């Protein structure tokens, strides 16, 4: 066993870490996160040039990574700097496109030219991957889509939107779902953007006979979506772990320096034990993220159980770490001015992406039953 990253990955992490320290300092991040656009095309291009997007994809698609730990190392750095750029959507949509042989498009993304959004969740969907009602209709020229997608991160930033839709079957069924690419500005496409509470922007997508190009085989996209979401969960898990590390470091620092009753508050045993609990829980979260990254490229059931376990774990521990960080800071932890509060918000809201704690606990149990049947 070896829990170290290899040299290439370490170099990549260093490069990205240095870039973010120099160019994505917290005040820069805040300006981008709260701006009208909610992202920075310039930062995106610069990071793409560093190879950050390329690290998310395998060689067949023109990248030089694409494994679970490549995703881990990138998103860990992004999390530590609270980056709001459209990496998550590009990761998930890009993996689908790469899998379907759309390497041209993926190469454009790797170069920083194309930006993807992964528009899968629907207003009624509540994390259920098969609850898809958006309808695809064949036409002479290809397909048109009608329906709605909800809370898509950085939807407005995307040049290409990957949309799931039903070519057959009923909402809730795994069969009958297909994937399509829709281009920005396509007829019948409406994007309603808004700020997210943890920074950056999201959007509601509505499609009304919008022309679209099918990606991959018709009706069998469920498995592809599940795999893309698994990659997304690995990304979120590592983003979350990095945020927890930041919260922990800042809180320990505060406990050491803040004086009340003539001593640093870190001398109060009541707070020491709380901090110790947070610290040990974060290590559990990190292990869950390692397990998920390690399982990403393997067998489906093992992979899905590991990502659900990780999403459950970071959901539970993320809430704990965020709430404790605020609490142990007292009033100052409640302020906009302190970066910590924004880390806490992001960490909490990660719990609302790609399935929350309860959703993944339930799913883990179901997958266990499935394993019992097949194993």
């Amino acid at each position, binding site marked *: 066993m070896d829990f170290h990253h290899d040299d290439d990955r370490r170099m990549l992490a260093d490069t990205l870490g240095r870039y973010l320290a120099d160019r994505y300092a917290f005040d820069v991040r805040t300006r981008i996160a709260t701006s009208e656009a909610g992202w920075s095309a310039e930062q995106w291009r610069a990071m793409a040039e560093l190879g950050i997007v390329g690290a998310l994809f395998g060689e067949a698609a023109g990248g030089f990574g694409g494994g679970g730990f490549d995703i881990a190392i990138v998103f860990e750095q992004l999390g530590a700097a609270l980056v709001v750029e459209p990496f998550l959507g590009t990761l998930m949509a890009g993996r689908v496109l790469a899998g379907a042989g759309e390497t041209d498009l993926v190469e454009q993304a790797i170069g920083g030219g194309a930006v993807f959004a992964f528009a899968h*969740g629907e*207003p*009624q969907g*509540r*994390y*259920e991957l098969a*609850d898809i009602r958006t309808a695809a209709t064949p036409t002479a020229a290809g397909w048109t889509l009608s329906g709605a997608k*909800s*809370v898509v991160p950085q939807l407005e930033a995307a040049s290409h939107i990957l949309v799931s839709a039903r070519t057959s079957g009923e909402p*809730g069924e795994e069969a009958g779902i297909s994937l399509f690419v829709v281009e920005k500005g396509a007829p019948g496409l409406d994007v*309603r953007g*808004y*700020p*997210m*509470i*943890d920074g950056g922007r*999201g959007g*509601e997508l509505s499609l009304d006979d919008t022309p679209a190009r099918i990606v991959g085989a018709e009706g069998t996209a469920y498995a592809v979506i599940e795999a893309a979401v698994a990659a997304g969960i690995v990304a979120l898990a590592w983003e979350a772990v990095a945020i927890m590390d930041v919260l922990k470091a800042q809180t320990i620092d505060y406990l050491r320096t803040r*004086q*009340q*009753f*003539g001593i640093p*508050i870190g001398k*109060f045993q*009541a*707070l020491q034990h709380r901090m110790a609990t947070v610290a040990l829980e974060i290590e559990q979260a990190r292990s869950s993220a390692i397990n998920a990254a390690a399982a990403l490229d393997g067998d489906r059931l093992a992979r899905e159980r590991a990502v659900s376990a990780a999403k459950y774990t970071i959901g539970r521990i993320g*809430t704990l770490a965020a*709430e404790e960080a*605020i*609490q142990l800071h*007292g*009033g100052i*932890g*409640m*302020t*906009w*001015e302190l970066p910590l*509060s*924004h880390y*806490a*918000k992001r960490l*909490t*809201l990660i*719990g*609302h*992406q790609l399935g*929350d*704690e*309860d959703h993944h*606990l*339930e799913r883990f149990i179901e997958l266990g039953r499935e394993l019992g049947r097949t194993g």
Partner: protein
Amino acid sequence: MDLAYGPDEIAFRDEVRAFLKERLPQRLADKVRLNHRLDKADLEEWHAILNARGWLGNHWPVEWGGPGWTPVQHNIFDTETGLAYAPRIIPFGLSMLAPVLIKFGSDEQKRHFLPRILDGTDWWCQGYSEPGAGSDLASLRTSAVRDGDHYVVNGQKTWTTLGQYADWIFCLVRTDPTVKKQEGISFLLIDMTTPGVEVRPIILLDGEHEVNEVFFTDVRVPVGNLVGEENKGWTYAKYLLSYERTGIAGVGASLAAFAWLQHIAATEQKRGRPLAEDPYFAARLAKIEIELENMRTTNARVLMASGGGAAPLAESAMLKIRGTEIRQEITNLARRAIGPFAQPFVSEALDEGFNGEPIGPDYAAGIASDYFNNRKLSIFGGSNEVQREIITKATLGL
């Protein structure tokens, strides 16, 4: 034991209900329920409605305009106003300063200030905390130095809730730096329009302006604004903190927030069924419902035992800790209940008159920010850790 209300109590409850039905503006109740912004005018409107009925200073002695309620009546009033989504009564003048003035203030102070608190002429804020003095409040440093018939005040207060609206601030100031820290503190009333007072906003993590920093530079305060005796301020401050704890558990407001949470859980769908029926979420709801029901009884027990007056510190501490934890858990569940719709945040949607289309269900707009904002409950008014210290010292003999 008999947990049921007697006939008089039922009659009183019905009276409160009828009053709320008739007088609580639907507009205000909707805002409270949906976590929309309440501005100064909204809060003043509700204060004035209560005052017209003689229920605003409901903890005040009858001679100063209080209604003379029993502890059970207070409890009923808090529960019913909470359940009806009435705005909270802003406590600074009414239930913090007023009891101190009534017990320790001069006749002149009482005659001047108390009616103005009731009729809304003066909006008060609380100047206790300082950057270096939070949990360790007695280490405060803002100084007041006697100069003829004035005190000259210098220093800084912080976390002053709604200080941006305030006409007056009641402050703890240091009048004797040479003695034990609790013994050199005085309780001073300061007109916010006095030269040298400056208020600066602090923005909280939800983006809202609710607290402030208040700076004092050579602020001249007439000695007539000293409450009680010089250097006895700590006694008054402690009295203020332990006075009348009926509202501290927030049972009424939590019952209402829980009822609204149940509505959300019944409306949100998971796999085509109401979220409330999902066993995982149902378990979360059930636990909080049990806690809340227990709290309701604990609260009533403490109130009855304290005879409506000052509750003992340890009991107040228990109410504060558990009451705020329950409220925070309710906001936590509401956040979870709306799933991905917790992420969007359209600030304008919290303003009156917003008629844009909601993102997701119409109740979603203020839920995540309310969750974050309510992290304050376990921090302010003596943090929950400090409350635990109080319990440990006062009742456990440890």
